[in-house]
């Protein structure tokens, strides 16, 4: 059996199920308890688990992340919710300089099983300081894993996996604008391994890789292309680090063309890394240069027309795919 539930509920189920299973798991963050979550992801969790395990913090990202990182080293399994990843920048020191390096610095003695989660990327006209997509920042760091989910089903399975089985720091990225999206979620418990991409649509002519909310653009573009008899295979990365480049390569072996759609800024982005890997491992399979659509190389401005121009969209994805198919003009 399955139920139709929203992305935010899927995340909540993942946390609640793991908290019921394991006393060591707790949730900490701004407005997670009494307010029931800034975006209502943790709704009802205070009522079920009480103040000891669903903990409101002051606006002190560096401080409470440090506390969670310390608690993780000392036997607990914290989940930290950032209201958005823009604010986690204040805690970057703890994530980069402590959490990611504990195992290495201590010669394998002390690990840091912590899940840091929250919405990532732009969410409408929120201006430059509330609109950054952070996958490439965190994916650059050895010692942590980065998950970035596009829907409730994946999010639930991956979050449960992160909380229960992973013993390294996990960066877990969601999207404000997807929280209300509904999807069938099985009643039975399930886990999705970290590090495995998912082929969301099978195709033969071109491979489109994306993740998080840009998957909507990728899938909508694929549907458009289908009308013109271009069959796109669409891969949802789901995990950014470790990068499942084998799944991409296998697809490219079939389609011989690769387009990447992402919300990162272009310089040293995830698409840069994918392009390097695929040209190195699959050079002979490529019939066209690997191409990408990224966010514009600029902070995201407020005006709606500037946002449309700055972010990948279906029309430009379709156009780019046609370019790698040498079908334009």
């Amino acid at each position, binding site marked *: 059996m399955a139920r139709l539930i929203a992305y935010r509920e899927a995340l909540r189920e993942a946390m609640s199920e793991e908290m019921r299973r394991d006393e060591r798991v707790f949730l900490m963050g701004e407005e997670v308890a009494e307010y029931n979550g800034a975006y209502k992801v943790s709704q009802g969790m205070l009522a079920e688990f009480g103040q000891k395990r669903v903990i409101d913090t002051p606006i002190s990202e560096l401080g409470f992340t440090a506390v969670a990182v310390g608690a993780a080293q000392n036997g607990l399994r914290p989940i930290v919710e950032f209201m958005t990843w823009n604010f986690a920048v204040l805690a970057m020191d703890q994530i980069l300089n402590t959490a990611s390096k504990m195992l290495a610095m201590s010669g394998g003695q002390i690990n840091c099983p912590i899940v840091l989660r929250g919405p990532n990327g732009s969410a409408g006209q929120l201006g430059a300081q509330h609109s950054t997509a952070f996958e490439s920042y965190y994916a650059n760091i050895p010692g942590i894993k980065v998950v970035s989910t596009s829907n409730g089903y994946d999010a639930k399975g991956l979050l449960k996996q992160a909380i229960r089985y992973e013993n390294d720091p996990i960066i877990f990225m969601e999207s404000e604008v997807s929280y209300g999206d509904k999807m069938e979620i099985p009643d039975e418990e399930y886990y999705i391994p970290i590090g495995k991409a998912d082929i969301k649509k099978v195709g033969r002519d071109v491979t489109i890789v994306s993740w998080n909310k840009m998957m909507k653009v990728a899938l909508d573009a694929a549907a458009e292309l289908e009308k013109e008899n271009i069959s796109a295979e669409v891969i949802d990365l789901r995990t950014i680090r470790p990068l499942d480049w084998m799944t991409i390569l296998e697809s490219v072996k079939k389609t011989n063309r690769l387009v990447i759609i992402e919300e990162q800024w272009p310089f040293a982005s995830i698409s840069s890394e994918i392009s390097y890997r695929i040209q190195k491992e699959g050079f002979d399979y490529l019939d066209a240069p690997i191409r990408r659509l990224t966010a514009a*190389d600029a902070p995201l401005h*407020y005006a709606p027309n500037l946002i449309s121009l700055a972010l990948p969209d279906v029309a430009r994805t379709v156009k780019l795919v046609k370019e790698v198919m040498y079908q334009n003009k």
Partner: protein
Amino acid sequence: MLNLPYFCSSKFYLLATLFSKEIYLYWYELMKLIRQFELISEEKYKMEGKIRGFYHAYVGQEAIAAGCISATKAEDLFITSYRDHGLAIAKGMSINSCMAELYGKATGCAKGKGGSMHFFGKDVNFYGGHGIVGAQIGTGAGLAFAEQYRGTDNVVLCFFGDGAARQGILHETFNLAMLWKLPVIFICENNNYAMGTSVKRTSNVIDIYKLADAYEMPADTIDGMSAEAVHEGVERAVKRAREQGGPTLLEIKTYRYKGHSISDPQKYRTKDEVEEYKDQDPIQKIKQTIIENGFANEEELNSINARVDEKVAESVKFAEESPWPDDSEVLKDVYADENYPFIID
């Protein structure tokens, strides 16, 4: 006595007549203008969807803007959080450019690039409009550092919320500002809530002005529903800063009538609580003082109201008729360089 830390000046409204008729009428018109600007723009947001993004109203807190502006000079710098409309308008930014910014139009005070949270007006020494809670506490001290470095007697008014007071940057900045005696007034606009979190749930120390103690920084608490009290307290702190006496922390007790932002259902407080504060509305209080002292009659105040309404209506017209930013603006104002080689795939 005036230099005593923790001297609470909230009784100063009793000395209302210490201020001139001109100041009262100026305060009245300014506060009316801020409020009308927000009432109309909120309508444009909710009813017509012409304004988007996060929008944080200043309604209820206007006396702070009024008292701060009358206690400072034009050369003094202001910097604040995303709840920035009131202070921007007080600093003298044009209503037209502010409304156009909310609309995201090219004629906005940040060319439509900032929106509600990021008003800027360098020409009137308004340094924004910042979205990361607490960040401007440090930046404000930096603005003051530059004034001290250049040897001016200008001061910086650096505003932040009660929630922001729990960020670590506050402590580092307080220490630096006292160490170097920077000409900055730290103004905590304590409206009792950080989103849905009341002050008492954020710390063991709920009197925020006491945070200055650890650095031996002078501090004061002020009734933020009274423009007179704000003026008085700020004036003293400003005097000290101008005379190289260093920073002051002012905790100004205020209240926001509206939700944290437009989308806040406000389940964390009662309607009665909100009504209680509305009963001591700063604009009503000023109005009463004006009438009681014969500074103006109802009719004269109504003509001020009409002038304000007209100004705001005109700003809406201006914003609606203004063009969107040109497409080329996506890559403009990112670098000072004219020909920066952006990555364009």
